[in-house]
Structures are given as C-alpha cells and as structure tokens.
C-alpha cells in the first residue's frame, strides 16, 4: 500500500502544482472555475484513453510514439502557458485595477481561459495516464484491491493537499504581487516543460542531445528526492541536463519573456494622449 501511495503521490503532485499555479493566476476572473473543472475532467478522460491506447501509441512512429506524444503534450502546454503570460502582461494591470475597484470577480470576455483549461488538461493527461497504467499493473499483480485503493486514494489526497497549500499560499499575496509571481512561476514552468519535451525528442533520436550531461549537480540534489522532484516540476530542475535541454530552457524564457516585455510595454501606458504613441512593431 505504501509503495502505491508514494508513486501515486509523486505523479499527482506534478499535475496538482500546475493546476494550483494556473488557478492562482486566474484569480478573480469570472467563469474560471468552469474552465478549470473542464480541464480537470478532460484531463482525466484523456488519461484513461491514453492508458488504454498506450501500446498503440508506443508502437507508432517506429517505436518513438510515446516520446513524440509526450513531447507534443508538453509543447502544447508550453504554448498555452506562453499565451496566458503574454496576455496577462498586457491586461494584468487593468485586470488588477478593475478587481480592486469592484471588489469581486471581473469578467473579461477576451481572456483566453481555454488556454488555462488546456494546460490543466495536458498536465493531468500525462501524469494521470501513468497512474492508470501503474495501478493496472499492481491490480493484475494480485495486490489486495483494498490496499491498492487506499494507497491510491491517500496518494491523490496528499498530492491534492500539496497543490491546495501552494494555491492558498499564492492567494495570500496581494493581487498585484500575485500576478507577477504567477507570471514568473508560469514562465519557469513553461521553460521546464519545454526542456523536458526536448529530452523526449532526444530519447526518440529526433533531436541531438548536444552533450549528454553538460553539468552534474546530483551530488547536491537528485531529481528522485522529493525536493528535487518539486523543483523539477516547478522550475525544470534537472541534475544532469543535456545541451539541448538547456537550449530549450533558455530559449523558452527568452521567447516568452521577450513577448511579455514587448506586449506589456506596448499596453502599459496609463492613458493614450499623455505620452507620444509608441510605434507598434
């Protein structure tokens, strides 16, 4: 039961952290619950489907199907996180001001909430399908169903508790800080996911590794430790990153950060008229 608990917990925390960060980042937006729930349910349904078709996925693309699939899921999430952050950098200030003025949720019609739903769905789909396969393996190995169920339930609950802790911790921040902190978290989350996606493509022999382990900090912190795994999920910590992982990590930060700066600066002018209009590239 303990083994089940630990492994389920480890899979669940990754999805739970992603969910808690995007939930905190969308604080105060009317209709976000609907989208978050949609993302969770869609992710669970997708996880079951992926688990059922795991064999077919693995066998596709000459045996590289699983890697390409995982990389695709990660890259879709990266694009959605990028979109969310760029949107927030241009609308975050007015959103925060409006929330402060009206004191309750504001509805921003154009906000890309589906991007948030997709991010949550992708995170749950990836981790959830592993949980399903793992539990299936245990179940067919003859471990008592009650021990399996109990371990699984406690594992999910513990992972969810960690997610809630992060979520409520973030909500303690003032609205203005909340948006900048979640923007940073999402930026690093996206960079870590991009690096992980690149690693899957290296494993599939599609991308070169550009150096198998450029540095090695496993003496300090391994990814298999709990702290190492949390940092792996949150900021993409990798003890032995390959060259291509570093390139994708830095590239993602530069691209998303650059887009945020570009759109953030262009829209952050207090009122048109007071300043000379900026040329929009």
């Amino acid at each position, binding site marked *: 039961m303990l*083994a089940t608990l630990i*492994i389920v917990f480890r899979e669940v925390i990754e999805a739970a952290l992603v969910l808690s960060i995007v939930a905190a980042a969308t604080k105060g937006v009317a209709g976000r619950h609907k989208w978050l729930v949609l993302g969770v349910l869609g992710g669970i349904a997708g996880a079951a489907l992926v688990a059922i078709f*795991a*064999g077919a996925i*693995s*066998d596709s693309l000459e*045996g590289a199907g*699983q*890697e390409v699939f995982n990389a695709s899921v990660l890259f879709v999430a990266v694009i959605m996180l990028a979109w969310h952050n760029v949107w927030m950098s241009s609308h975050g200030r007015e959103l925060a001001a409006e929330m402060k003025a009206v004191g309750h949720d504001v509805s921003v019609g154009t906000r890309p909430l589906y991007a948030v739903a997709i991010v949550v769905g992708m995170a749950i789909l990836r981790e959830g399908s*592993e949980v399903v*396969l*793992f539990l*299936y*393996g*245990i179940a*067919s*190995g003859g471990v008592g169903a009650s021990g399996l169920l109990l371990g699984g339930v406690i594992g999910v609950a513990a992972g969810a508790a960690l997610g809630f802790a992060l979520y409520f911790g973030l909500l303690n921040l003032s609205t203005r800080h909340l948006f900048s902190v979640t923007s940073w978290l999402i930026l690093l989350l996206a960079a870590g996911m991009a690096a992980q996606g690149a*690693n899957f493509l*290296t*494993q599939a*022999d599609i991308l070169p*590794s550009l150096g*198998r*382990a450029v540095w090695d900090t*496993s003496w300090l912190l*391994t*990814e*298999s430790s709990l702290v190492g795994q949390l940092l792996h999920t949150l900021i993409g910590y*990798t*003890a*032995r990153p*390959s060259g291509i992982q570093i390139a994708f990590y830095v590239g993602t930060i530069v691209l998303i950060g650059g887009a945020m700066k570009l759109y953030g600066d262009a829209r952050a002018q207090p009122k048109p008229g007071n300043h000379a209009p900026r040329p929009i590239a």
Partner: protein
Amino acid sequence: MMMRKFLPAAVVILAMGFAAPAFAEDPVMVEISIKDHKFDPAVVDVPAGKEIKLIVKNLDATPEEFESTELNREKIIGGGRQGIFYLDPLKAGTYPFFGEFNQATAQGKLIAK
C-alpha cells in the same frame, strides 16, 4: 533554403563515410529483460565512449516504466513489449536504472568501462 540547411550535414556524413569508417560504427547492442519485476541481467557491463542501443524487453504481463535519472531516460514499456533507447557515448562510471512501477525489486545498473 533546404540545401543551405542540409548541405553541411551531407558533407559531414560523406566525409565520415569516406575518411573515417570507424566513426560510422553501429551502436553497441545491449539487451535487458524484465521478468517478475526484476531486470535480467541486473548489472550490465558496457563499453565507455561508444554509442549504445539498449533494448529493454518486458516479459511480464504488466507495464513497467523504465527510468534512469543518470541516463536521462524514462519510458513506459507495456506488458510483453519492448522499449529501445539510444544512448550517447557514456563516460566510465555506474549508471543505475529502475522500474518505477516496481521499485522494490526492479533495480539495475549499466557499468561503463
């Protein structure tokens, strides 16, 4: 555009083919089985400094996730299926791997010499 991108690669490949056939060596094949949630063999000697093609055959009926942080690899291998891993040349050393779904028993390592 295509030529500009591929020409250098083509030149390198041709040069390797003509000048140094030793570089065009096939990767070293290494095969490991998973049976009863254990690796067989659990300790594998591999040559350092050579590309390796690692084939992991899962003879169990249940899925296993082959994982190694040292090798930077992770992949679920379904019951009765196999997974293939291409590894860049390794430095001499020990590279542990494990089956994430059965960590109590599924432990092994590559020793590069």
